[in-house]
């Protein structure tokens, strides 16, 4: 186990992030447990990306305490980066490298040894049924395969947490659901999944959901709790009820 590996894998206390006079994150407070699937929702411009960049050690909080896998993101961002995985919608695969070359590259960056890389590569290709495509260029693969591979690479070094930023954009509905099978697999192995999405049905698949409005956390709880609290039939209705309250901040004069 990693140092500081307790039940709460993410601890955020009074997180504030300002850009000049603009408050992008306004006193955020939340905790995420080990193995939890945590949905992070909000309208465009609500402050999600700012918060994720801080949690990944890419940006320093203006004030407040943020611990990720037991490490302080403000003072030890490099430690944080080593214990997380990250996948964005514009995936991070190299189009002009083959599948196995991409795997070797990522595993090398995270310091895995050759024997371990070989073993995990074989297991990964088998699990994704990609053995036949091992030597194909990424650019020749269908989008759905790329997404599954990008996710598998994001957790290849067995991080404590994986951040997924709109991972299922643009794929067909079957592939989108297969992607969630991978998310459940990862969570069942104890990897914490921190995911953003614009698909409200996917919000229902999370253990807990946090909804940001205008830089603040407007709601936090399990989908069942939020639906009951808002008197809503589904998460789409919860989201619309909360997000409608927002003042479009970039439109303030």
């Amino acid at each position, binding site marked *: 186990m990693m140092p500081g590996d307790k039940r709460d894998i993410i601890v955020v206390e009074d997180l504030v992030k300002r850009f000049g006079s603009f408050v992008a994150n306004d006193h955020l407070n939340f905790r995420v447990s080990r193995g939890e699937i945590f949905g992070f929702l*909000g*309208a*465009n*411009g609500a402050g999600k990306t700012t918060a994720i960049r801080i949690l990944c050690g890419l940006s320093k909080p203006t004030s407040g305490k943020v611990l990720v896998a037991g490490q302080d993101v403000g003072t030890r961002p490099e430690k944080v980066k080593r214990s997380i995985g990250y996948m964005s*919608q514009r995936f991070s695969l190299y189009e002009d490298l083959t599948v196995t070359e991409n795997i070797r590259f990522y595993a090398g960056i995270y310091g895995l040894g050759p024997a371990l890389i070989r073993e995990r590569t074989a297991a990964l290709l088998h699990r994704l049924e990609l053995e036949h495509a091992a030597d194909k260029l990424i650019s020749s693969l*269908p*989008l*759905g395969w790329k997404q599954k591979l990008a996710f598998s690479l994001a957790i290849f070094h067995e991080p404590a947490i994986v951040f997924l930023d*709109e991972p299922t*954009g*643009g*794929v*067909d*509905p*079957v*592939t989108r*659901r297969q992607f*969630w099978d991978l998310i*459940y697999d990862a969570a069942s192995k104890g990897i914490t999944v921190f995911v953003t999405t*614009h*698909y*409200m*049905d996917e919000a*229902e*698949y999370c253990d807990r959901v946090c909804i940001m409005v205008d830089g603040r956390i407007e709601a936090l709880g399990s*989908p069942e709790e939020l639906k009951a609290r808002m008197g809503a039939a*589904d*998460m*789409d209705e919860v*989201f*619309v009820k909360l*997000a*409608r309250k927002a003042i*479009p*901040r*970039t*439109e303030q*004069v």
Partner: protein
Amino acid sequence: MKTAVRVWELEKRYGSTLALDGLDFSIGSGELFGFIGPDGAGKTSLFRILTTLLLPDRGGAAVLGMDVVRDLREVRKVIGYMPGRFSLYQDLSVKENLSFFATVFGTTVAENYELVRDIYGQIEPYRDRLAGKLSGGMKQKLALSCALIHRPGILILDEPTTGVDAVSRREFWDMLQRLRDEGLTILVSTPYMDEASRCDRVALMQSGRILGMDSPAAIAASFPKPLYKLRAGDMYRLYGALREFPATASVYRFGQDLHLTAGQGMIPDQDLLPYLQAQGLDDVVVAPCTPGIEDCFMELLSENQNQHDARR
């Protein structure tokens, strides 16, 4: 009904990839028509051909009676096009962008202001702001205003709502429906299945082909099997159990429910519930379910896959 768009035997290849695999269809004047499918389905290739930006390899298309290859100059005058990526000039202001697009088409903002009043009016208070500094929702409104300002005979919008949050998406579709009510023909593509219900007719696309094309209600009505929705305290275990259930044809997560299709003779009370109880799942609620577009898309996808495999 007059025909606004006609497409025949349309094919487009990129190297060995068949992006459009022989499309044939017509769209009537005044329709709000949706092309629904994932990335790589061929939506953008189709729209680029219809907007004269790409040449077909075989077959052809006509927009408002004009051929997209032979009459390309005339076609360009009558279409309003909003490409998938934000196409405005980031370093021009809101007002400058709008007048630029009006000028290019030989008109003025004043002449056609009436057309964009509803939409442009919402962003007009920020007319001096640079387009690059706008929020996503405002960019969308400006891009739509720019596509409308020359009074086009048809509007072609390539994934205008991709990456946009659920609330802004709703507002955008409200705007499109108002334009349609005023008689404008609108073609719009989207990867979001739930937006199908906002269209008069839709084409469900995958891998360069149209899997189905009709009104959303007719597509839903054509779903070939009984469909059930199920819920239990432990959805993860329920999902696993249903995947192992011998009569299962398909089982998919659908938000807070699972959707199940099964072989024709399956009776839930007699066959399914006892099976689940035997696995310790005794709080399962099962009910018949009205198929949505996403159910239909996945069903068509698997039928298509089976035909494809059979042909091999």
